[in-house]
C-alpha cells in the first residue's frame, strides 16, 4: 500500500510540495565522519562498531512502527592503517593471567566499562543479565567514593570500548593454527594466453616476504587444467617436483606431506616454482578445467590445518569426477532474461555442489576460499559465490581478463589479499541485554548458531551486520549493552578475543529514533538485506523492500512527529534512490548476471564507508580544484576536494571530473576540455582515444598532476580494492557507465532525485 501508485518511471515535474521541506543536497565530504551521538566513555570507536540508530525503543510496538532496521554493524579487525597510527590508538591487549577472562557466570558476557562494582569491590553486577558475580581474588580492587574501582584507569577493559583479551587454553580446541595459503591455479591455455598465470606468479613472488605469520606460515601450490598437478616443495630438494594426477574420479594426494610446506624453509623452492610455472605451461593447448576435483584436492590438503585457498579461474569448470559430477557448469546466461522477473534464476546456483563443499568441508575444517575469476566469457559466478560467502572469503571478478589491461589491478588485489591483516579459525558472537535478541544476520557468513558466526578466516576488510529485535514487549532498563566478541587466532599464533561494546540508551519516544538515526549505517543494512531478498525471490522484491522501508519510515515520522525531519533522516530518500539505481539491484538489462553476482557478493561484506561510496559516489571537479585541494596539511594528510552533485546538470563541458564509487575510478572528460588541461594531467593533446580506456595516471611535474596524483593515492589508501582508473569521454560509448553513477538524474526506469522527493512529499501529505 505504501508504494501503490508510485511507479518509478519519470513522469515530469510536479508542483513543489513543502511537506518534507527542501531536498537536502548530497554530502560534500568525501568520506563523512560517522554519526556519533553517544558519550564516548567506554563506547566502541565507530570504526569498529556502529548502530543504525543510537536509541533503542522501549517497546516492540514502537520498533515496528519505526519501519527501519535496528541493527549493529561490526568491523572487528578495522585496525588503524600505518598513516593513522599517530591519531588512532591501537586496540589495547589484556592478559588476565591466573584469574582467567572475566565473564558473567550466567550469560557469559565479557566484563566491560558499563558493569557496576558493588560490595566494596568484591562483586560486580552484569549489565546484560543483572547477575551478581564474585570478583576473583587476583582481580580485586577497592572502590573510590564514586563507586568506581581505584584502578579503573589502569584496566583497559573497564574504560575502553574495544579491547582484546588473550585467550587461555579453554578457548582452544587445538593449538593455534599457523597461517596457511594454498594457491589453486588454472593453467589451461586461456590462463596462459590472457597472461593470468604470469601475473599470479609475479604477484605471489612479490608478496612472499610479506605473508603474515613469519616463520610459521605454510604455503602450497596446486595447478589444474584437464588434470591435477601437485608440487613437492620439501626443503631438502634442490628443485620443486611436479606430480601429475589424471584421475579425476577419486582425486588423491600423491604425497602425504611436503605439499604444504613451511614458507621460510622452502621459500627458495616456492620462488623457483613461481618463476618456472609460466614457462612450464607456455605451450599448453589444454582448454579444459578440472576445477571441482582441484578444489576437492585442495581441501584434502588443508583439512588437517585450515587456512586460505586462493582459487584462480580462467575458464568455466568443464571436467568433473564421480564425486564432483554435479559441479560441471554450463553457459546458462540468457540475456533475454536480464531485466525481467526471471533474472533471479541466473543469480541462484544451479547446483548445490559448491555450497555443500563450502559448508560440509571448508567451514568444518576452517578453510576459507578467495576466488579470482578471470574468464573471457560467462563464468556462472552465481554457482561459485557460495564458496566465498559461507567461508567468509572474497570474490574478485575481471571480465575478459587481459594482463596488459588488468595486470596492475590484479597484482594489487592479490597482493592485498595475501598481506592484509588476517585472523584464523574465528567465531563471532553478539550479545545484547535482556529484552533484546539478535534476530538476523545479513551479508556473507555461515550462521553456526542463533547468534554465532563461524568464520574460517576474518580480515580487516570484512564487516558484519545483525538486526536486533525485542524479546519482551517492554524494556525497563535505561540502556542496552550490545557486545560483539570475536574469538580468533592471530597470524602470530595467539588466540585472542576482541570485544567491542556499545551501550545504547533506551527511549520510549519515537522521535528519538529518528534524531539518533545514522542514515549510512541504516542503508548498509538495508542494501544487504535487499540483496538477500533478491537472491531468495526476485530483484523486484528487493527494490520494493528498499522503497517500502523508506516510505514507511517517513510516513511514521510524518504521523507521529510534528518537527521537521532530522538531518540524517532527510538523507534516507537520496540514499534509497541511489540504492535503487545501483548495479546490485537496479532494473534493466545493462547489468550482466556475472557482474551482478560479483557485486552482490562484494556488498555483502562491505563496511559502512564502502557501501556509502558505492551507493553515493564522490565526484571531484579536477578542473576547478581549490588552491588547497590535493595539498598536504601540517600532519601530512592530503586535503581532499569537496564532492559535487551527481547530476549531468552540474557537469561542465570544459571540465574533467573524477568519480570514486569505492570499486573503481572514472574520469569524465568534457568535449570542450582545454588541451592544456589534458597535457598537464594526462600528457595527451586530445581525448580521442580515452573513451572507456583504463589508464595509469602519469606522474608529471605539473602542479595539477602532482595534486591529482596525491588525491588518487589518498583515495586508494583507504580502499580495500585496487581502484582501476578508467577515462570516459563526453558523448562517447562508454559514457553510459558514467551516467549510471549520476544518482540525481532520471533514468529509463527511475525518477530524478527532485521528482522522487516530490513524489514522496505528495504521498506523505
Amino acid at each position, binding site marked *: 500500500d505504501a508504494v501503490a501508485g508510485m511507479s518509478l518511471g519519470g513522469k515530469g515535474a510536479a508542483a513543489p510540495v513543502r511537506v518534507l521541506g527542501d531536498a537536502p543536497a548530497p554530502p560534500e565530504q568525501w568520506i563523512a565522519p560517522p554519526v556519533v551521538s553517544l558519550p564516548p566513555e567506554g563506547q566502541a570507536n565507530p570504526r569498529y562498531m556502529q548502530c543504525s540508530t543510537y536509541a533503542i525503543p522501549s517497546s516492540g510496538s514502537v520498533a515496528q512502527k519505526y519501519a527501519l532496521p535496528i541493527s549493529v554493524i561490526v568491523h572487528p579487525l578495522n585496525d588503524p592503517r600505518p598513516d593513522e597510527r599517530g591519531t588512532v590508538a591501537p586496540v589495547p591487549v589484556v592478559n588476565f593471567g591466573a584469574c582467567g577472562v572475566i565473564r558473567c557466570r550466567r550469560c557469559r558476557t565479557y566484563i566491560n566499562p558499563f558493569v557496576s562494582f558493588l560490595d566494596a569491590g568484591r562483586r560486580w553486577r552484569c549489565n546484560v543479565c543483572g547477575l551478581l558475580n564474585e570478583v576473583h581474588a587476583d582481580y580485586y580492587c577497592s572502590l573510590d567514593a564514586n563507586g568506581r574501582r581505584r584502578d579503573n584507569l589502569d584496566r583497559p577493559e573497564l574504560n575502553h570500548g574495544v579491547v582484546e583479551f588473550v585467550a587461555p587454553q579453554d578457548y582452544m580446541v587445538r593449538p593455534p593454527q599457523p597461517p596457511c595459503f594454498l594457491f589453486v591455479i588454472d593453467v589451461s591455455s586461456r590462463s596462459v594466453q590472457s597472461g593470468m598465470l604470469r601475473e599470479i606468479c609475479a604477484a605471489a613472488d612479490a608478496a612472499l616476504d610479506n605473508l603474515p605469520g613469519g616463520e610459521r606460515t605454510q604455503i602450497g601450490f596446486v595447478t589444474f587444467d584437464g588434470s591435477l598437478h601437485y608440487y613437492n616443495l620439501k626443503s631438502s630438494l634442490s628443485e620443486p617436483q611436479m606430480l601429475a594426477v589424471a584421475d579425476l574420479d577419486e582425486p588423491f594426494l600423491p604425497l602425504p606431506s611436503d605439499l604444504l610446506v613451511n614458507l621460510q624453509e622452502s621459500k627458495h623452492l616456492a620462488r623457483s616454482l613461481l618463476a618456472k610455472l609460466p614457462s612450464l605451461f607456455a605451450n599448453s593447448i589444454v582448454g579444459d578445467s578440472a576445477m571441482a576435483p582441484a578444489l576437492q584436492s585442495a581441501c584434502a590438503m588443508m583439512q588437517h590445518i585450515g587456512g586460505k585457498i586462493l582459487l584462480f579461474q580462467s575458464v568455466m569448470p568443464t571436467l568433473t569426477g564421480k564425486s564432483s559430477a554435479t559441479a560441471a557448469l554450463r553457459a546458462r546466461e540468457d540475456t533475454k532474461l536480464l531485466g525481467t522477473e526471471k533474472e533471479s534464476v541466473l543469480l541462484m546456483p544451479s547446483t*548445490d555442489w559448491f*555450497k555443500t563443499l563450502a*559448508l*560440509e568441508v571448508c*567451514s*568444518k575444517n576452517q578453510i576459507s576460499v578467495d576466488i579470482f575469476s578471470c574468464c573471457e566469457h560467462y563464468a556462472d559466478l552465481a554457482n561459485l559465490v557460495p564458496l566465498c560467502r*559461507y567461508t567468509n572469503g572474497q570474490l574478485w571478478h575481471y571480465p575478459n581478463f587481459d594482463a596488459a589491461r588488468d595486470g596492475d589491478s590484479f597484482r594489487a588485489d592479490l597482493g592485498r589479499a595475501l598481506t592484509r591483516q588476517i585472523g584464523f579459525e574465528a567465531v563471532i558472537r553478539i550479545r545484547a541485554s535482556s529484552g533484546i535478541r539478535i*534476530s*538476523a544476520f545479513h551479508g556473507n557468513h*555461515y*550462521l*553456526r*548458531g*542463533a547468534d554465532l558466526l563461524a568464520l574460517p578466516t576474518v580480515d580487516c576488510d570484512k564487516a558484519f551486520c545483525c538486526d536486533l529485535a525485542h524479546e519482551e514487549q517492554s524494556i525497563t532498563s535505561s540502556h542496552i549493552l550490545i557486545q560483539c566478541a570475536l574469538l580468533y587466532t592471530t597470524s602470530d599464533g595467539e588466540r585472542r578475543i576482541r570485544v567491542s561494546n556499545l551501550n545504547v540508551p533506551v527511549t520510549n519516544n519515537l522521535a528519538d529514533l529518528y534524531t539518533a538515526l545514522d542514515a549510512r549505517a541504516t542503508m548498509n543494512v538495508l542494501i544487504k538485506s535487499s540483496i538477500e531478498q533478491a537472491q531468495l525471490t526476485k530483484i523486484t522484491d528487493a527494490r520494493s523492500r528498499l522503497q517500502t522501508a523508506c516510505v514507511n519510515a517517513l510516513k511514521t515520522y510524518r504521523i507521529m512527529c510534528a518537527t521537521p525531519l532530522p538531518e540524517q533522516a532527510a538523507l534516507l530518500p537520496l540514499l534509497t534512490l541511489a540504492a535503487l539505481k545501483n548495479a546490485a539491484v537496479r532494473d534493466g538489462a545493462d547489468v550482466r548476471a556475472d557482474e551482478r553476482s560479483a557485486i552482490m557478493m562484494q556488498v555483502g561484506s562491505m563496511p559502512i564507508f564502502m557501501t556509502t561510496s558505492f551507493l553515493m559516489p564522490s565526484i571531484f571537479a579536477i578542473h576547478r580544484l581549490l588552491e588547497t585541494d590535493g595539498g598536504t596539511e601540517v600532519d601530512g594528510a592530503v586535503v581532499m576536494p569537496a564532492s559535487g552533485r551527481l547530476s549531468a546538470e552540474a557537469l561542465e563541458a570544459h571540465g574533467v571530473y573524477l568519480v570514486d564509487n569505492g570499486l573503481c575510478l572514472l574520469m569524465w572528460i568534457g568535449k570542450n576540455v582545454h588541451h592544456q588541461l589534458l597535457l598537464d594531467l594526462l600528457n595527451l593533446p586530445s581525448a580521442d582515444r580515452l573513451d572507456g580506456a583504463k589508464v595509469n595516471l602519469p606522474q608529471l611535474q605539473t602542479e595539477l598532476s602532482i595534486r591529482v596524483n596525491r588525491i588518487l593515492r589518498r583515495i586508494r589508501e583507504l580502499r580495500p580494492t585496487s581502484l582501476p582508473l578508467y577515462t570516459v569521454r563526453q558523448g562517447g560509448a562508454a559514457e553510459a557507465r558514467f551516467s549510471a553513477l549520476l544518482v540525481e538524474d532520471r533514468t529509463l526506469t527511475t525518477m530524478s532525485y527532485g521528482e522522487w522527493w516530490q513524489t514522496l512529499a505528495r504521498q506523505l501529505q
Partner: protein
Amino acid sequence: MGLEITIGVLLFFGNIAVLALLGYKVVKFSELEEDYQNPTDFAKDMNKVFPFELGLLGVLFSLQTFNTLTGFSWLHLALFVIHSCYFGYHMKLYTDNKWKVDPAAVWGNHFKDKMKKSMFIGLAFAGSCFFLYLYNMIRVL
C-alpha cells in the same frame, strides 16, 4: 478377511514407523537448539530421513487406497483423505525440490517456525492415524 487383517496390521506398524521417524526428527531438532549438534550435521540427518519418510508414506498411502477400494467404510475414507493430504504435501515438496534442509538457513528467521509447524502437523497426522489404525486393527481382529 485375512488380507484385511494383514493390511490392518501393516498399516498400524507402518504408522508406528512414521511416529518413530517424527520422534527422531524432534530429538534432532532439540539437539540443534541445545547446541549439541551443528547445522550442517543436522541438515544431513534431516535430508537422509526424508526419502525414507516419503517411501514409507507412499507405501502406507497405497495400502490405505487398496483398503478403501476393497472394503469401503467411513473409517477407511477418513484415513484415505488424511493420507492423501499428507502424502500429497510431501510429494509436492519432493517434486518442487524444496525438501532439502539448507544448513545455511537453519538459524535463519523462519526455519525454526517452519520446522516446528511441520513437526506438529506430522505428529497430528501420525497421532490421529495411530488411534484410527488401532481401532481398525481391533475391529478386524
